């Protein structure tokens, strides 16, 4: 899922008991779909607010219910969360219920005064999206000046003393600038840097040229490992998002301390996603039509969480949903196809994920690689998916055009 940074914060870490009891430890909550950026990779196609977004009172009741279920961290997102007028009230309510509150932002027009007010209301950390150096970031985010604003927000956090992190989308052209971007992030005082592959959903399906090809993991993973080591020397922790994996030679590097390897998608077992209109999901990024588990206005969250079929698919850790390469993989029982969002959005069905380092390396030993080709556009709806074909082909000889 598109979970934000602060992954190594102890309260968010999922324990064995959390897994057995299905405690919704971590909630990502889209509090509005309104947004002041126009990102060409946006899975939710954010821009305008939803027709029936939850009221302030309804939101506070959601916080109360989540606290009763044992939630330990809520990350508010959008759209752009601070576009919602009562966002500080919600930050305070989350904090007052004993839940860590973090926020993910593009940072555009988020003033220093607003950041100070959020910190005063109990915001624990701010994650800022930076998707490349200025030209690439501004192009992807669709607003000129958005890069400068994002970096300025990081600097403001450092000056105020608020923990900041950076989230970076791995798109097809970002790799050559990741090292320089890391320098910017370190200079701006961020503590965590989370990277995740751009997923074929919403606007990213319309702009499929920005998607990484699965076989490009052979270049990306060693690069990230090198950056991880260099970042650690300068007090920046590079964190892999849920769709960075799996079981390649670097997992032990970036998933320790902790389990040391990817333990499977937590959606619906230890994670909840909430849409601004009250739709509950196991992960905020999953396609609403397949994974929407009802409206919190109509049914108590505890009842949806316990009973709704759309939230159950990860809890018994079965492998019956797996197919393709993942079905026969040695790590099937642990990994279970990696990030549900990534696989489901790409191929219309969870359980077969070509964005896997172990898979790419295994296929390479056989002289094979996989690439994706769009065969169907995504509807103009939030969290809409298109359809991609997975092409298996011989690895071109060195020097030949890919």
């Amino acid at each position, binding site marked *: 899922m598109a979970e934000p940074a602060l992954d190594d914060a102890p309260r968010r870490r999922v*324990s*064995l*008991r959390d*897994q*057995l*009891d*299905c405690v919704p430890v971590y909630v990502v909550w889209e509090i509005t779909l309104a947004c002041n950026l126009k990102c060409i990779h946006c899975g939710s196609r954010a821009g305008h607010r939803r027709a029936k977004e939850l009221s302030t009172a309804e939101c506070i009741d959601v916080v109360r219910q989540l606290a009763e279920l044992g939630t330990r961290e809520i990350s508010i997102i959008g759209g752009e969360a601070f576009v919602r007028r009562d966002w500080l009230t919600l930050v305070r309510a989350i904090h007052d219920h004993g839940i860590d509150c973090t926020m993910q932002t593009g940072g555009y027009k988020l003033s220093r005064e607003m950041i100070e007010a959020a910190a005063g209301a109990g915001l624990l950390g701010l994650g800022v999206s930076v998707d490349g150096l200025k030209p690439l970031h501004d192009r992807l985010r669709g607003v000129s000046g958005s890069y400068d604003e994002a970096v300025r927000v990081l600097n403001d956090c450092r000056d105020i003393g608020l923990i900041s992190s950076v989230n970076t989308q791995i798109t097809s052209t970002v790799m050559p600038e990741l090292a320089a971007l890391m320098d910017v992030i370190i200079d701006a005082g961020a503590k965590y840097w989370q990277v995740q592959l751009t997923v074929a959903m919403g606007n990213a399906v319309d702009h499929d040229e920005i998607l990484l090809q699965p076989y490009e993991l052979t270049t990306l993973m060693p690069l990230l490992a090198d950056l991880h080591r260099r970042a650690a020397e300068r007090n920046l922790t590079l964190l892999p998002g849920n769709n960075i994996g799996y*079981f390649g*030679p670097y*997992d*032990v590097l970036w998933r*320790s*301390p*902790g*389990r*040391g*390897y990817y*333990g*499977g998608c937590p959606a619906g*077992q230890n994670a909840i996603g909430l849409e601004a209109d009250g739709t509950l999901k196991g992960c905020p990024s999953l396609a609403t039509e397949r994974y929407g588990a*009802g409206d919190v206005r109509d*049914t*108590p969250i*505890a*009842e*949806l*969480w*316990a*009973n*709704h079929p759309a939230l159950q698919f*990860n*809890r*018994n*850790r079965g492998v019956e949903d797996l197919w393709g390469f993942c079905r026969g993989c*040695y*790590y099937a*029982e*642990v990994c279970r196809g990696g990030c549900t969002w990534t696989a489901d959005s790409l191929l219309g069905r969870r359980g077969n994920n070509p964005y896997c380092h172990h898979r790419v390396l295994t296929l390479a030993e056989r002289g094979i690689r996989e690439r994706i080709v769009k065969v169907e556009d995504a509807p103009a709806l939030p969290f809409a998916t298109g359809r991609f074909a997975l092409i298996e082909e011989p690895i071109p000889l060195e020097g030949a055009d890919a």
Partner: protein
Amino acid sequence: MSDNTVQPPQGRAAPVLILCRQCVQYVFEGTVTCPHCGRDAREMSARYRDRGYLAIEAMLSIERAAERRRS
């Protein structure tokens, strides 16, 4: 939806993996012959010993033991 009875949900935990001490790839806990390299996964190689994996694995196993005690 079902009736209003709310039974506490129950899940299963992820299986435990450890590093093969020969090729340093993950294998299931208790594995003797590594499915990746075909060697004895318990026998420590120089690579495993000298590149810090021993310390990492020790740290991970302490964490797992603490987890099991808590649960």
